[in-house]
């Protein structure tokens, strides 16, 4: 009996000497929550309060506006192109980096992260310099009546740039941790390369892949700076949801601006929920 009582005292004692007194814990939790409340939760709440400030009918009108619907369509289109491309790229990059040893690998990893360290404004600028009228390909494109900048292709390109590293970044550490034994076993047992990828690698990385795709999608739909530079801001034609929000806000149409913004805030909440659910799967997997 005495032994069964003695055992649990050790963690209890440890928790006592390596934690703070109760009052201090309360104070620290209080300060942390106050800071988070003021800086994160208040703005989130404000989006929805401002969106409904002038009533539900104004809210629905703002969303049903043809320009708003056109912006939603363009945002969905840009994400529908950018996310799959960056997904394929992410898998290819992670396959090469995680499964093989080669020279220049760490340089390649650093270069993959470049888009995250570049200002979104510069991300837009580089495509103006390439495809704008004064740009490298500008004269040739003008001759052939192809518009990239201040048109939809430019928006898609800028979106691809800013969401470039998301999937690769999730997959590389995950695949490095998983090693190559399972794939080698499949190959030894006679599976082809593609079979090995589809039936061994892909099931192993599915949660990491989904995680990366969700983050990539959230940024693709919400990007503002880069898209703003290449868009040209033509209502109904080259406006994405964030750009439409900006226009409404600058026209002092705050209720409509927040109504449309609430769509993006809702997307953010869905993203966070999906992220924490998938995160649990990912950590359970290891």
């Amino acid at each position, binding site marked *: 009996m005495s032994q069964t009582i003695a055992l649990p005292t050790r963690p209890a004692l440890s928790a006592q000497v390596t*934690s703070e007194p109760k009052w201090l814990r309360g104070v*620290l939790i209080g*300060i*942390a929550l106050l*800071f*988070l409340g*003021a*800086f*994160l*939760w*208040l*703005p989130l709440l*404000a989006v929805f309060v*401002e969106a409904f400030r002038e009533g539900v009918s104004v809210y629905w009108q703002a969303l049903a506006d043809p320009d708003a619907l056109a912006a939603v369509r363009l945002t969905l289109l840009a994400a529908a192109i950018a996310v799959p491309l960056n997904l394929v*790229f992410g898998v*290819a*990059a992670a396959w*090469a980096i995680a*499964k*093989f*040893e*080669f020279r220049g690998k760490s340089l390649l990893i*650093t270069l993959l992260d*470049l*888009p995250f*360290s*570049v*200002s*979104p*404004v*510069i991300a837009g*600028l*580089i*495509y103006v*310099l*390439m495809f704008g009228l004064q*740009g490298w390909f500008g004269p040739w494109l003008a001759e052939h009546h192809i518009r990239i900048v201040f048109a939809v292709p430019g928006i898609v*390109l800028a979106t*691809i*740039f800013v969401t*470039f590293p998301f999937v690769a970044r999730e997959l590389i550490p995950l695949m490095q941790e998983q090693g190559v034994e399972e*794939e*080698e076993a499949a190959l*030894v047992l006679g599976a082809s390369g593609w079979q090995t990828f589809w039936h061994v690698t892909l099931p192993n990385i599915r949660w990491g892949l989904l995680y990366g795709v969700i983050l990539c999608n*959230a940024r693709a739909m*919400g990007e*503002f*700076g880069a898209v*703003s530079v290449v868009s040209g801001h033509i209502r109904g034609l080259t406006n994405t*949801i*964030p750009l439409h929000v900006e226009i409404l*806000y600058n026209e002092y149409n705050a209720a409509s601006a*927040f109504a449309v913004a609430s769509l993006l805030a809702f997307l*953010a*909440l869905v*993203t*966070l*929920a999906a*992220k*924490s659910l998938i995160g649990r799967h990912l950590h359970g997997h290891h």
Partner: protein
Amino acid sequence: MFRQSSVLPGFNLALGFTVLYLSLIVLIPLSATFLKSATLSWDEFWSTVTAPRVLASYRLTFGASLVAALINAFFGLLVAWVLVRYDFVGKGIVDALVDLPFALPTAVAGITLATIYAKNGWVGHLFAPLGIKIAFTPLGVVIALTFIGLPFVVRTIQPILEDFPSEVEEAAVSLGASRWQTFRMVILPSIGPAVLTGFALAFARAIGEYGSVIFIAGNIPMVSEITPLLIITKLEQYDYAGATSIAVAMLVVSFALLLTINVLQAWSARVRPPAVQEIAGEPA
């Protein structure tokens, strides 16, 4: 030898596609900025990037980013500490919401912060009687950059703090250290590099930030105009060379920060494992 042999297939295809895509989307377009700015003479370039209005924008961008990153380093450490060490109701949701600034589009954050901190807004009206203006001043820029940078610090410190072995703290206590001494002399040195890395990440992000800042900044030349906005202003005036020159100046700083962060992360990884492995390796 370029690479070690492996039985796995697809190396050439995967690496070839990776390098091609990276070049087309990122490397070639980025090099366009440097080549474009090379068409200017050094004097033209230098006078563009050191014009008084541009210098004022650097002061604001770097100053506000520094202050915001310092605020985040302090409160980010506190939030990470509370999330890892303590239990309280709703902790799961609080933890998930830390990533809000990553998930919430910057334009949405921008118009919301501008509304809250305007002189008749939820927070702004509390400070207006004291004569403190937040929106449309440099203070507003600091607020927006603090919002944007917080998750970088929390998410960098959190895993390091989770892995910190409690045996080390117990050892410190058994040698007579007070709780504060244990924190300052045992815990802080091993999470220090992570705090510094988070600080650098938040700072780097803040320097390039555009969407969340421009609505609350007021964008008054020489006072509350950030450098990325100046690039857009020059572009709208069809001053491509000017826009590109400022972009190059910013890129040089960004690349230097990227290198610094890589070094910090390597340091952080070096400081951590020995302490953990030595202790964890000992049979209990």
